[in-house]
């Protein structure tokens, strides 16, 4: 009887944080389709927001895309939206992928902002997979001319909280040819789980890719990675800075040259404008009323404005056009 009572009381003492999984199925994509143009500038699923930029003049995109493409055979960039696993993680249809240029950020939203990310699934795109397996006109076949080159394709996930980079990061080899026994060399071709809880509380993640195949024009290996089932928690393990109960109005957003921040409190606050990769660009003192931020000198893209007052904090995304 005591045992049953103890079992019933345990949840009261050890409340497990709620988890939300971003599986990207909410976009309702038909099979074999993709989205590379987010009208709001981000793709939102679960408690994550994936920045995206689309250039209608050139029909070009950067940041993140959402896909249900299942082509695991076609090599080359014409098949850039396909995961080599042929579907999403855990047999789902939809997944996200990013073209990594200088770091691809993933922003945590809602209750997940400032809380740990338990983990996520990653795999290679078909494009990158075959480029590493067979080589192409730009990139080398992993192993090189002799088969012995210690090649690698490394995903590094960094955590950020309030614009500060976490001390730890998580590495995952999407391909690893560094083994002395070539039989152990591998290229990831299925969804693999990456544990991220060790990063602690974060409000954004940044994905970086590094390859052993580089030239003067940068990394030759196609800089893509697919992501699915991002498991976020809704309760911070330890809140360093409790959230402000209100948020300042930001307008216009998107903006081209200037942004107004309407600070509702009488006491001034501190504002910090950062890139999505966590690089601090400028600090501001936010006074009661409307504050003008000049963002004309920054390139187009997504930025984060962190604001603090009396030990409370919050952040808002600003899109520069």
């Amino acid at each position, binding site marked *: 009887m005591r045992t049953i009572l103890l079992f019933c009381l345990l949840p009261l003492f050890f409340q497990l944080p709620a988890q939300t999984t971003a599986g990207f199925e909410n976009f309702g994509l038909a099979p074999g389709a993709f989205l590379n143009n987010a009208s709001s500038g981000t793709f939102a699923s679960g408690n994550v927001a994936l920045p995206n*930029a689309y*250039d209608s*003049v*050139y*029909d*070009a995109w*950067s940041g993140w895309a959402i896909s249900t493409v299942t082509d695991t055979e*076609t*090599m*080359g*960039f*014409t*098949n850039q939206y396909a995961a080599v696993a042929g579907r999403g993680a855990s047999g789902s249809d939809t997944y996200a992928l990013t*073209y990594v*240029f*200088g770091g691809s950020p993933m922003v945590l939203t809602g209750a997940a902002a400032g809380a740990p990310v338990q983990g996520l699934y990653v795999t290679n795109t078909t494009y990158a997979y075959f480029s590493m*397996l*067979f*080589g*192409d*006109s730009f*990139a*080398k*076949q992993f192993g*090189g*001319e*002799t088969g012995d080159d210690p090649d690698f394709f490394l995903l590094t996930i960094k955590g950020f909280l309030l614009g500060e980079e976490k001390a730890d990061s998580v590495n995952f080899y999407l391909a690893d040819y560094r083994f002395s026994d070539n039989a152990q060399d591998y290229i990831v071709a299925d969804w693999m789980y990456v544990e991220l809880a060790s990063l602690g509380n974060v409000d954004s993640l940044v994905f970086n890719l590094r390859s052993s*195949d*580089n*030239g*003067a*024009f*940068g990394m*030759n290996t196609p800089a893509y990675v697919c992501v699915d089932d991002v498991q976020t928690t809704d309760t911070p393990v330890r809140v360093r800075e409790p959230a402000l109960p209100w948020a300042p109005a930001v307008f216009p957003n998107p903006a081209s040259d200037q942004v107004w921040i309407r600070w509702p409190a009488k006491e001034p606050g501190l504002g910090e404008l950062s890139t999505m990769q966590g690089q601090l660009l400028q600090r501001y003192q936010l006074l009661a009323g409307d504050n003008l931020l000049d963002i004309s000198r920054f*390139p187009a*893209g997504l930025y984060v404005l962190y604001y603090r007052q009396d030990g409370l904090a919050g952040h808002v995304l600003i899109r520069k056009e």
Partner: protein
Amino acid sequence: MRKSILLFLFCCNVFRTFGQTGLLDSLQELPEVVVRSKVQNGVGATTITGLEQFPSVAVALEQSGMLFIKSYGIGSLATPTFRGGAAGQTAILWNGLPIQSPMLGLTDLSLLPTIGFDNLAAVPGGKSAEAGSGAVSGRIYLSSSTPPAGLRIQGGSTVGSFGYQNQQLAISNGNTRWRFQVNGQLLRAENDFPYQIRADLPTKRLAHAQQEQQVLLQTLVWEPNARNKFELHGWQQHTLRNLPPTTTQNRSEATQEDHIYRQQLSWHAHKAKSYWRTNLGFTHEKIHYRDPQLLVDAPSAFSSLLAKVVRKQTLKPTLFSETGLQFIQSWATADGYRQTQQQQQLGWYQKLTAELGQWVLATTGRLELVDFSGPLAVFHLQASHDFKNDWRVEVRAGRNFRIPTLNDRYWAQGGNPDLQTEFSWEQEIALAKEIHASRSSGFAKINVFNRSVANWIQWSQQDNAAFWSAGNIAKVWSRGVEPYLIWHYWRGESNLKVTLRYHFILSTYQTAIQNPAIARGAQLWYTPQHQLTTQVEYRRKKWVLGYTQQYVGATEGINDDLSDYHLAHLTAKWFPQWRRWDGQFLLQVNNLYNTNYRVIERRPMPGRNFQVGIQVGFTANEKLPPKKTLP
């Protein structure tokens, strides 16, 4: 004569099936000429002879050592590098009209055939004032053969390693008023040469490198009188190439198909104190790149309408004038363009040449309108002085230009319609000496040049953009020294010729670029600092033996550094004659010492390889065609 014209027209019509028929070779011994440093040709101008023994102009230029050829392998893309310049900074002219693609700004030298041309000249140094856009670092001149009077048929075949087969046929006929010449070539090669990555690793064989090429060049000449001559030139070509994988690529299924149609009509008019040359040209080129593996099917095409009028006049016995007007209208289509793109170039130049005693002075000025805006202004000054004892000094200076290509301006994405024209300042001084002895003669020259190119167009990732775009972001400084020596020795029927040619070239970026990673002061990719070519040729009666030794210094590539290398080539030729028949037997050994080398990283080059050829000529007249002899 009517039959001749009909034959000419017939050949035009059968071109489509030309590649299916077996053609005989046409080989003609071209005159052995060393164009000494004439002011009008620039310092160090040289002409390549015996062109037909080479599979392409690229190989002929490569072995001449006159410039550096960036070769991706036999039968693959080959582009010129004069004095550390970019490929697009070399003007390539066929009978005076440019043939560079307005889309790419360059011509693939491996596509240029070696039949039907009398003359191939490679001239270092810029001269946009006369040659127009692109003549920044050098010029390559191709001149069509002038058909001789009387019936002549030449044919032959060359076969070689790696499935190389080159059949050529030339027919010419006519009289002093009407003459025609038709040259045909059928070239096939497997190019499946073996190569080694490292001495301790097994030999691999290059796959998917086959090429097929059919070429038809035609010339029709009409000289109604001594003062007027009309020439109609046709150049039709089809080349299909499989693009081999790199050494770090498992396989390739990519192909490239080129269709080339070039037509040219020229009128030469001689008057009492003037000479007029009018050229009308039309070019249509189609490139079709396919890669079934990548599901890429990328056709592109351009057409150009060219017109050029040149008037040369003798103002005084020692004062000469040359005036030129050139118009080029180009249209281009590609999947990378949103619509058909056009470009207009209208150029006018004026040149004055004065002979003042031992001095020859020349000045040229040019105005160019691009898309009817501008004008751009460039000039060229040159002076030479002949001293006693056959010493000669030449000085040149000029401003040259290259307009952005259509790809640079309009390619989606990254094309930049606001690109500026590249401009260069170049100065050059040369000292030359002729030496004459009873049984020998020599010519030595040393050039020193200095060139700075501003607005250099470089594709890069700018302003943190995720894509590459073209920008005038670089400045490049090129300078160098080019000694040149040729020595003839003859005794009886024997003749020995030794040629030495060396290039020391520094061509460095004067601005640092983040991506691509270029440091300030870095040498341009694939640009050797040192290049040395030694050629020894021995002639006795109807035999010619030739040996070429080349050294190319180490270069830096986009992905890897490339080691220096030595190459050697051996040639033996025999020219028998029997009444109306003449012939040539050829044995060529390329890469004699089987050097394992790369010009571009990850692109293997062939080891030792052989070519054997036979050519036979028949002249209907009792009198044989004039034989070319050494100067």
